[in-house]
């Protein structure tokens, strides 16, 4: 059903063969598969990571611009054209800041904590399928690996909080541990719905399963609830408002990074935005069709009349750029949403945060998985080749089947989404006020 995303593109050995022939050597690079794989992974990962760090500096600027726009201010507009060099100026300034070490700090842990915090954000970039070829590692259990890795940043925060010799930081670190443990569960369970549909944890294959228009994207019709749960949990995972409890600058005086200055602080800052980018990218990949265009075929296919797999040379390059465009567009839509939420919502309390996860999100994601299982049973053919609907004699017509299945699925999901969400999430104001 799925093509495995290529470990390395077919042109790579040919290219290397030509190169070595020019050098006077006769080598068949096709025989060196593992070497090529490592080479390609390193090249692509370096490329993506470099682009990502640049993109993160842009995110800082974007956040300031978006928030300024929402609060009717101007934002940075002095350094460079339209203030575009502002974050570079900030980074330059941070480089020259004094690296303060307070008495009584655990110097070793204090120093490595930002690096540990940064690690998962960096690893994420190797797993993001930007296009079908611009993907550093196509892990068979990629989706699982993402969540396994994402917990590591908590270690960084807890260490930073502990090593700072500051009570605010300590509280921030403790909050972070509780928060990460609570929100990991709905995050994984939301993706479980997608894994149920596709039957694979390979992120590239999950994206492939959504090709052919926005009605095939999981987040639109099939599992919209999973999309919501995933995005909310992802916001908590990357400590964004309203879940920015570890930082909580007005309560904990920036929490775990109170004592950090200069580049160590910048690392925390950078990692936070890198994680935000990565989590938005995963939301786009899991639920919004990744690099596929929203209206069926790619623009490049429409222009050239060729299938994506048949394209070669410059046309393939153009197709890759188009895929990248769609992916980045979707990712930035989610990043913008996160910034929008930051402009709107205040911060929760720790007990409410825990309650929201354990009493609301986790039960909801369990119900969601149950509904998805029913939906899949009704809609997609099980191993014997016929869905429940197809085995009914009255509906046994090829044209009716997909539509009937679709209708049932949509009604199940939408009932869940609207009835449950409206009941549970937005309690009536009066009822809420009557609790006093």
């Amino acid at each position, binding site marked *: 059903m799925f093509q495995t995303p290529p470990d390395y593109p077919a042109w790579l050995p040919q290219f290397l063969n030509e190169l070595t022939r020019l050098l006077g050597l006769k080598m068949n690079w096709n025989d060196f598969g593992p070497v090529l794989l490592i080479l390609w992974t390193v090249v692509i990962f370096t490329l993506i990571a470099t682009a990502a760090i640049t993109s993160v500096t842009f995110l800082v600027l974007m956040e300031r611009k978006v928030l300024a726009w929402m609060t009717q201010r101007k934002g940075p507009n002095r350094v460079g054209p339209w203030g575009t060099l502002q974050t570079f100026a900030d980074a330059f300034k941070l480089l020259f800041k004094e690296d303060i070490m307070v008495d009584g700090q655990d110097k070793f842990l204090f120093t490595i904590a930002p690096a540990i915090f940064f690690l998962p954000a960096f690893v994420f970039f190797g797993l993001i399928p930007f296009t079908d070829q611009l993907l550093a590692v196509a892990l068979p259990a990629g989706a699982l690996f993402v969540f396994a890795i994402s917990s590591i940043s908590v270690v960084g925060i807890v260490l930073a909080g502990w090593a700072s010799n500051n*009570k605010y930081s300590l509280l921030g670190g403790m909050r972070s541990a509780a928060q990460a443990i609570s929100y990991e569960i709905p995050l994984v369970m939301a993706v479980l719905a997608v894994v149920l549909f596709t039957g694979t944890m390979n992120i590239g294959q999950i994206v492939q399963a959504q090709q052919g228009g926005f009605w095939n994207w999981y987040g639109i019709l099939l599992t919209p609830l999973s999309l919501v749960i995933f995005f909310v949990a992802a916001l908590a995972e990357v400590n964004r*408002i*309203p879940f920015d409890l570890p930082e909580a600058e007005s*309560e904990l005086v920036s929490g775990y990074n109170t004592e950090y200055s200069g580049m160590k602080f910048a690392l925390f800052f950078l990692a936070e935005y890198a994680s935000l980018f990565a989590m938005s990218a995963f939301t786009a990949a899991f639920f919004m069709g990744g690099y596929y265009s929203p209206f069926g075929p790619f623009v490049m296919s429409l222009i050239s009349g060729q299938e994506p797999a048949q394209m070669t040379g410059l046309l393939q390059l153009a197709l890759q750029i188009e895929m990248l465009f769609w992916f980045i567009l979707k990712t930035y839509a989610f990043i913008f949403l996160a910034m929008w939420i930051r402009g709107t*919502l*205040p911060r929760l309390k720790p007990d409410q945060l825990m309650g929201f996860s354990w009493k609301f999100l986790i039960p909801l994601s369990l119900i969601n998985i149950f509904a998805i299982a029913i939906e899949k049973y009704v809609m997609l053919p099980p191993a014997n080749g016929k869905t429940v609907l197809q085995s009914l004699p009255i509906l046994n017509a090829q044209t009716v089947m997909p539509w009937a299945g679709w209708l049932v699925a949509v009604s199940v999901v939408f009932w869940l989404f609207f009835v449950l969400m409206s009941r549970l999430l937005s309690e009536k104001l009066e009822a*809420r006020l009557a609790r006093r």
Partner: protein
Amino acid sequence: MTISEIPGVHTEQGLKTEDLVINIGPQHPSTHGVLRLVTTLNGEVVKDMEPIIGYLHRSKEKMAESRSYFQYQPTLDRVEYLSSFYDHFVFVTAIERIANLKVPKRVHYIRMITMELNRITSHLLWFGTFLLDLGATSPLFYAFREREEVFKLFEDLTGARMMYNYYRFGGVNADLPPGWIAHCRDFVRKMPAIIDEYESIVTQNPIILDRTVGIGKMDMETCLKYGVTGPSMRAAGVSQDLRKTNPYACYDEVEFDVPLGKHGDVYDRYLVRMAEMRESCRIIEQCLDKIPGGDTQNILNKQAEIEAARQAAKEKGEDPKAIPDIDFDWQTQGQKINLMTYKPPAGEAFVACESPRGMLGCYIISDGTPKAYRMKWRGASFSNLSVLPELMIGNLYPDLMAIFGSLDVILPEVDR
């Protein structure tokens, strides 16, 4: 050895926990000035709290005994820097009461307009910083947008944006500049819609509700016990507003409601302050309609008019003295007083007004010299702050920010 036998780790009830003593402030972003709260936390639950004040002591009461009244007056701006019109008002009114000065009606109206505008700016800043304490950043910037408009009005009127020093004994420093009333009316007309905008982002926000509803409840007994006044008291359902119960200036000539809460929690304090801004707009609009003398009442112009009329009468052969002098009842009478050497007669007076934070009082004993014999201030923030430990104990650490923010304490007013 079981885990419960390890000393210091386990108790019979469960894991042994240690209390965390944390000094919140004086530089903490949520203490709005320099307040130190020595807080004992058990986990994130506040077990004990003691506010420690005095880092900002301005010795305002002692200062009054070494300066003449007029020299002392400009320093008053720094007492409650968010609504300094009120400090000036009680100070000036106390002097007027001692000296039995008659204040023209127009001056009363100008004072009412400026004080109500000042209430709006003060509540706006409270709105922004309170929500900033809860983690929402946007409302702060929205609030500053409108504050800026009022500051423009104040700048036109007094020449200053925050430290006004505009009121004088028996009057005000200068009359309203031309066109000021129209600008003020524009602002007051559009302000209710802007408050709607604020409310749309805050009032029914589920997270705001979760963080404020039922938090920091204060009933009438607590309010009376600690002397809490102002919106914090009215949120508990106590209808106590000096503008209604003990009208000063011309507050008995305007119509307005006193917004009341029911439960006395943080959310009600928020609602009361938002409603008060609307009521302030109502009061200002009525004042602008009723203000005697209309748009502007420039003394020099008036003097020139009278001189011209007298000259014309003289040329016609009539008696120029038949044309009356300037009717000083319309004027800013304060300009007739020589301020630098002003000596009120011996006597004493206590004047209180309803400041944005509650009852603000000034007690002056005059011995007939240019300096006060004794002066005492009653700041609302001092009493409002004293109730904080009672509200806090047993609540969570983040609630501290919500509750402390909702009391709207200004530290210079606490330490005076």
